[in-house]
C-alpha cells in the first residue's frame, strides 16, 4: 500500500493541471446552489437548514460524478500511459485505490466548497449543525459509491464517452429505484408486495442518503455506500488484471 501516495498525488493534481478542475468546480457549484435557490426554495422556506441544497445532490451526482470519473482508466488506456503505470513497481490494487481516492478527494472538495451556504444559514438563523454535518458526511460517502461505479465502467473501455454514458445510466437506475414516484408505481400500479418494493428501493442511493439528510448516521447506510464502492473497486481490479 506504500505506493498509493505518489499515485494519489499525481491523479489529484492532474485535475488542476488541466482546466477540468476549474470548469467542474464552478459548474457543479452553480448547479447545486442554483437548484437549492430556484428549485428548492432556499430563501422562501424560511428555515435555517441546508435541506434544499442536499435534496438535489443524488440527482446532480448522476451527471457530475461520471463526468469526473469517466477519465480514470479510459484516459490511461487511450494515451497508453497504462503501460507505463503498470510497468512501474505498483500493484493493480494500489493503482486502483490511489486513483479512486484522488478522484474521491476531488469530489469531496467540490461538495465542501458549498460551505458559504452553511455560513449563510448560520448568519441568518440557528441551524442544526448535527444535521448539516451528517448531510455533508452522507454526501461525501454517496459520492464515493457513485465514483466506484464510474471507475469500474471506465476500466472496460478506452472511450470516455462510452464510459460516461454507461456510468450515467447505472447511477440513474440506482437513484430511480428509490424515488417515491417509482416506488409508488411499483407498489400501486404493479401491485407488488410492500416487502419487494422495500428490497428494490434499498438498492437506491436516494433511500440511504435521505437518512443522512435528516441527521441520522445509521451504520447500515454507511456500510451500503462503502461496500458498494468496495465491491466496484474489487471488480475494477479484476477487470484490469484480466
Amino acid at each position, binding site marked *: 500500500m506504500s505506493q498509493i501516495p*505518489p499515485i494519489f498525488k499525481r491523479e489529484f493534481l492532474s485535475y488542476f493541471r488541466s482546466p477540468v478542475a476549474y470548469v467542474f468546480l464552478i459548474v457543479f457549484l452553480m448547479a447545486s446552489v442554483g437548484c437549492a435557490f430556484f428549485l428548492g426554495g432556499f430563501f422562501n422556506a424560511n428555515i435555517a437548514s441546508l435541506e434544499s441544497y442536499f435534496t438535489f445532490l443524488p440527482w446532480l451526482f448522476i451527471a457530475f460524478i461520471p463526468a469526473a470519473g469517466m477519465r480514470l482508466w479510459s484516459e490511461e488506456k487511450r494515451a497508453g500511459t497504462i503501460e507505463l503505470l503498470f510497468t512501474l513497481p505498483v500493484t493493480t490494487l494500489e493503482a486502483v485505490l490511489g486513483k479512486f481516492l484522488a478522484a474521491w478527494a476531488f469530489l469531496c472538495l467540490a461538495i465542501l466548497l458549498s460551505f458559504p451556504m452553511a455560513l449563510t444559514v448560520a448568519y441568518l438563523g440557528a441551524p442544526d449543525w448535527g444535521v448539516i454535518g451528517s448531510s455533508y458526511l452522507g454526501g461525501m460517502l454517496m459520492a464515493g459509491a457513485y465514483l466506484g461505479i464510474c471507475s469500474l465502467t471506465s476500466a472496460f473501455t478506452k472511450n470516455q464517452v462510452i464510459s460516461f454514458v454507461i456510468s450515467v445510466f447505472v447511477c440513474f437506475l440506482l437513484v430511480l429505484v428509490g424515488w417515491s414516484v417509482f416506488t409508488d408505481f411499483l407498489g400501486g400500479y404493479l401491485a407488488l408486495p410492500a416487502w419487494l418494493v422495500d428490497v428494490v428501493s434499498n438498492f437506491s442511493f436516494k433511500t440511504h442518503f435521505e437518512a443522512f439528510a435528516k441527521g441520522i448516521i445509521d451504520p447500515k447506510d454507511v456500510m451500503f455506500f462503502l461496500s458498494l464502492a468496495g465491491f466496484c473497486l474489487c471488480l475494477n481490479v479484476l477487470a484490469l488484471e484480466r
Partner: protein
Amino acid sequence: MIEVKGLVKDYGALRAVDGVSFTVRRGDILGFLGPNGAGKSTTMKVITGFLRPTAGCALVGGHDVTAEPVAVKRLVGYLPENAPAYPEMTVEEFLGFVAETRGFRTAAQKQPRLDRVIGLCHLGPVRRQSIETLSKGYKQRVGLAQALLHDPPVLVLDEPTDGLDPNQKHEVRNLIKQMAAEKTVILSTHILEEVEAICTRMIIISRGKVVVDDTPEGLRARHAGARLDEIFRTLTQTDQ
C-alpha cells in the same frame, strides 16, 4: 539475467507470440528484429510484466514475472513503444512522479536522480515544459529518461530511436553502449544498421517465432556475401 522459456501469448484467436525462448546475460545488448506485427512488442510487454503470458514463462533476475511482477518491475527500466507519458505534466513533474513510485520520495533523493537523467537525455531546455507541447524527439527522450531514472540493471527499450533525428539517434546509441557493460539491454528496432552499430546479439522473430538467434557477425558469416537486410528479407518474407 533474462530468461524466456516457451513463451506463448494469444490475443483472442490470434497467436502473437508462439513458443519464444532465449536468454540474455549481463553485458549483452540484444537487438530484437522482425517485421511489424511479428511479436516483438508483445514479448517485451510480457518480460516487463505488463501482459500475462498465455503459456511459458519469463524470468528477470531470477524472479518469475507472473509470480512476482513487482520484484521484476523494480529491476527493469522500460521504454514502451511511442514513449507514453501524462501529457498535462511538465517533464520535471512527470520524472518526479516516476521517481516517487521508484522509491525516491524525498527531494534530497529525488533531485540528483532527476538532474542525472535530464542531463543524460539532454532535456534541460524543456524541463519545465508540459509534455503535450514537446516534439516527437523530446517525448522519446522523456521516455528514455524515465526508464533510466533508477539506474536499473535491466533495460527494455521498444524502438528507442524512433522519431529521433540522425544526430540524436547516434547519441542515444552511444548512451546505450556506454551503459551496457554493467546492464542487460533488450532493444527492438526496424533499423538494421542500428543492430550492427550497437548490438552484441540479435534475434529475428517472424510470426511469433524465433528464426535467428546469433551475433550480427555470426549471421553474416553464415550467409557469406549477403547484406544484413537481404538476410532479413529472406528469413521473414513468409510474412507477406
